[in-house]
C-alpha cells in the first residue's frame, strides 16, 4: 500500500444557483491578463447544454483522456510514438473558435463621437487583434437554456435518450435545467501530465494539486488536447499553458480557494482524501461500469488503524491524517456515497465529486392536493417522472449506470422526508424511517447529511490541512531565515519572448 493524500472537492449541485460568483472571483485573481482573457479556470455550465469549450464532452471530436487498448492504458490524443508528428501540428488541439474570441467594447466612442441625430454605440473589439469583431458566441452563450434548441440539442450526454425523453426535456411546461460548475479535477491519473513532452506538468506529492511549471512549458500544446475536461488552456500571448491551480497560494496560507470561498450557494466542500497510489494504474484500466466503485475503493478510511499506520510509514504528516478524518469530502464520497465523479469513463480518475441534482422535486397530486407522500412509495415516486431523465444524469456521473444515480437520489429524498417528518410532521416518522432504510441510510446518517448540506460552518465545509511548506524549505535553509529573505519568488513579468 502506498498511501498518499489528495485535496479533494465535492460540489452539491442541488444548491448551485448559477450565479457565476465563483467564475468571477477566479477570473479577477488569475485570468485577467493578456492571453488569458478567454480562459475560465472555473466556469458554470447550464445542463443540458454544450458547455465550454463547445461540446467538450464529445471525445470523438476532441480525443481527450485515456482509452484501454489491449491490456494497456493509452492517451487518446498522443503518446511516445505519436509525439514526433503531433509536435509540429497537433491534430486534436481545439482552437480559439471552440472557446470564443475574447472581446471588449470601444467605450471611448460613447464620449468622442461627434454630435449627431443618433445615439453613439460602443462597438465590440477583439482582445486579440484589437479590430472590430462580430460576436458569434461566448463562454455562456447557452446560459439558462438560451437558444437551447440550437445549443442544448448538441449536448453529448443526450446520447442514449429516447426521442420521447428528448421531447420531454424541451416541453415548455416541463422545461428543466441545472447548473454544472467546473474547475480542474486534479485527477489521480491526469492525462495532461502524461501528455506533456517537456515534463512541465506535475502532480504535487503532498496534496495532489496538478500544476504547470511556467518555466518548463514550451508551448507543445499536448496538455490542452489530452485533458478530456478541457481544463488546461493555452496562453496565446506568452506561449505557455495555464490551468486551475486550486489557489494553492491561498491553501498554503490556510484559506479556501477563491471559487470555494466566494460560493454564494455554499455548494462547495473541500477536504483531504487518503488513497492507495499503488492501485491507480490497475483500476484506471477496469471496464467502465466498474470505475466508480473502484475509485471509491482506493480511497482509504482515515480512521482505520492499519491505514493510519501505513500513511505514517509513507510519510503522510500527522496533521494531514487528522485533517482527513474530518474531511467532508470523505463523508460525501465514501461514507454516504452520494457524490459521484464526472465522466469517469475518461479514466483520469477525477478527484472532484458531484452530488447529482434532485431538482425539481415533483410531488404527486391527488385531486389537485399536493401529496407529500404518506407512504414510502409516494416518497420515492417522483424519480421516474423526474424532469431531468435519470439516463442523462447517469451519462454525466455514472458511465450510464442509472442505478448509481437512483441510489443517490433515493437517499437524498429519504433525508428530506425524514426532516419533514421531524419538523413539519405531515409525513409519519415511521414512513420516513422506512424510506431511509430502503435508501440504505439511517436516522443518524440522515441527520449528518442534513447538517452537512444545510447548516455547515465555513470550517466544516473547508477542512484545509496544514500544507507544511516549511518542510520544503528546511531541506535548504532555515525557514525563519527564508521567511525574512524572500518576496514573491517569480517577479519577472510574464511577457512574450525576449
Amino acid at each position, binding site marked *: 500500500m*502506498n498511501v498518499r493524500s489528495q485535496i479533494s472537492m465535492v460540489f452539491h449541485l442541488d444548491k448551485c444557483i448559477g450565479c457565476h460568483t465563483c467564475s468571477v472571483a477566479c477570473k479577477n485573481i488569475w485570468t485577467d491578463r493578456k492571453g488569458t482573457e478567454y480562459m475560465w479556470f472555473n466556469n458554470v455550465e447550464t445542463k443540458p447544454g454544450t458547455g465550454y469549450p463547445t461540446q467538450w464532452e464529445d471525445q470523438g471530436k476532441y480525443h481527450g483522456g485515456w482509452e484501454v487498448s489491449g491490456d494497456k492504458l493509452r492517451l487518446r490524443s498522443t503518446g*511516445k510514438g505519436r*509525439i514526433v508528428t503531433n*509536435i*509540429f*501540428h497537433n491534430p486534436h*488541439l*481545439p*482552437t*480559439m473558435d471552440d472557446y470564443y474570441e475574447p472581446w471588449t467594447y470601444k467605450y471611448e466612442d460613447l464620449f468622442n463621437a461627434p454630435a449627431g441625430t443618433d445615439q453613439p454605440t460602443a462597438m465590440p473589439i477583439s482582445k*486579440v*487583434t*484589437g*479590430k472590430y469583431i462580430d460576436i458569434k458566441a461566448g463562454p455562456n452563450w447557452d446560459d439558462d437554456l438560451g437558444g437551447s434548441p440550437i445549443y442544448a440539442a448538441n449536448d453529448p450526454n443526450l446520447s442514449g435518450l429516447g426521442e420521447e425523453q428528448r421531447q420531454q426535456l424541451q416541453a415548455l411546461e416541463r422545461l428543466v435545467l441545472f447548473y454544472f460548475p467546473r474547475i480542474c479535477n486534479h485527477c489521480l*491519473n*491526469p492525462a495532461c*501530465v*502524461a501528455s*506533456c*513532452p*517537456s*515534463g512541465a*506538468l*506535475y*502532480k*504535487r*506529492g*503532498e496534496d495532489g494539486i496538478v500544476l504547470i511549471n*511556467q*518555466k*518548463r*512549458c*514550451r*508551448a*507543445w*500544446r499536448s496538455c*490542452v488536447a489530452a485533458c478530456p475536461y478541457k481544463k488546461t488552456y*493555452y496562453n*496565446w*500571448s*506568452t*506561449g*505557455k499553458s495555464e490551468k486551475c491551480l486550486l489557489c494553492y497560494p491561498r491553501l498554503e496560507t490556510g484559506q479556501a480557494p477563491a471559487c470555494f470561498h466566494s460560493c454564494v450557494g455554499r455548494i462547495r466542500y473541500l477536504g483531504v482524501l487518503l488513497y492507495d*497510489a*499503488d492501485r*491507480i*494504474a490497475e483500476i484506471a484500466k477496469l471496464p467502465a461500469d466498474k470505475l466508480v466503485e473502484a475509485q471509491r475503493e482506493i480511497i482509504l478510511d482515515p480512521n482505520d488503524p492499519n491505514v493510519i499506520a501505513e500513511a505514517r510509514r*509513507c*510519510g503522510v504528516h500527522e496533521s494531514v491524517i487528522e485533517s482527513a478524518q474530518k474531511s467532508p469530502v470523505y463523508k460525501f464520497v465514501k461514507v454516504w456515497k452520494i457524490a459521484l465523479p464526472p465522466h469517469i469513463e475518461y479514466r483520469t480518475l477525477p478527484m472532484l465529486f458531484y452530488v447529482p441534482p434532485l431538482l425539481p422535486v415533483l410531488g404527486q397530486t391527488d385531486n389537485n392536493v399536493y401529496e407529500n407522500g404518506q407512504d414510502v412509495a409516494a416518497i420515492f415516486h417522483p424519480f421516474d417522472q423526474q424532469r431531468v431523465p435519470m439516463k442523462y444524469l447517469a451519462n454525466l456521473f455514472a458511465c450510464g449506470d442509472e442505478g448509481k444515480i437512483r441510489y443517490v437520489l433515493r437517499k437524498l429524498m429519504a433525508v428530506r422526508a425524514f426532516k419533514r417528518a421531524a419538523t413539519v410532521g405531515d409525513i409519519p416518522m415511521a414512513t420516513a424511517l422506512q424510506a431511509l432504510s430502503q435508501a440504505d441510510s439511517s436516522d443518524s446518517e440522515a441527520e449528518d447529511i442534513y447538517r452537512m448540506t444545510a447548516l455547515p460552518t465555513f470550517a466544516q465545509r473547508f477542512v484545509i490541512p496544514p500544507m*507544511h511548506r516549511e*518542510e*520544503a524549505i*528546511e*531541506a535548504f535553509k532555515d525557514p525563519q531565515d527564508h521567511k525574512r529573505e524572500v518576496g514573491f519568488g517569480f517577479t*519577472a513579468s*510574464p*511577457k*512574450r*519572448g*525576449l
Partner: protein
Amino acid sequence: MNNFPLPIAAAPAGLPIDDVLFVVVPYVVLALFFVMTIWRYVKDKFSYSSFSSQFLENQHQFWGSVPWHYGILALVAGHLIGFLFPREVLWWNAVPARLYIMETGALIFGVTALVGLVNLIIRRAINERIRAVTSRMDVLILVLLLLQVLSGLYVALFTRWGTSWFAGVLSPYLWSLFTLRPDASAVALLPWSIKLHILGAYAIFGVFPFTRLVHVLVVPNHYLWRRAQVVMWNVRKNSTGGGK
C-alpha cells in the same frame, strides 16, 4: 581529391574582406550564440517557448509547419552529416546512381521546406490573429530563413553535386574553424551564391538567441523514456511515476 567537379571560380584569392566574412564573422557569431543562449536560459527561462500559434489558426498552420519542419530537419541533418563524415559522404557519392539519389533527396527536402516556409509567411501576413502575435524578430527570422532556403535551392540547382563539394571544401573549412586554425582560402574562391548561403547561415546563428528559434534547443527529448505520470515532492527526492 579532385575527381568531382569543384565550382571554384577563377578569382584572385586572399581578399581581406573574405577573411573578415569567413573567419572573423563566424567566431563572433559563435560567441554570440553560446553566450546569449545560455544567458537567456539562465536569466529568462520563461521566454523559452516555441510560441505556437496553432491555437489561433489551425488549418493553414498544418500546410506551413509540417512541411517546413520535416524539410528543414532533414536538410540540417544532411549538412551535419557532410560536416562530420565527409569521407563517408564522398565514398557514397563515388557511384553516380547513389550521388543522384542523394542530390534528388536533398532537393526534395529543400522544396518541401520552401513550401512550408512560404505557407507560414503567407499565414503570418494575412491572418489578423497571427499578425497580432508577430514580433519584429519573427519577421526578421522569417526573412532570413526564406533567403537561406532560396539561396540553398539556387546553389543546389546551379552549382550541382553540392553533397560532394560540401564534403570536399566546406567540411575542411568548418573543421578549420572549430580546430582554431581558420583557413578561408578555399571558401574565398567559391561563387557568390554559395558565399551568400554561408553568410546567411551565420546571420541565422547570430540572431538565433534573440528569437523563438531557441525552441530547437529545448526539444522534449526525455519524454520518450520518462514514466507517464510526474509527481513532485516537497521533501522527498523528485520522482516520476509511482515511487514514493
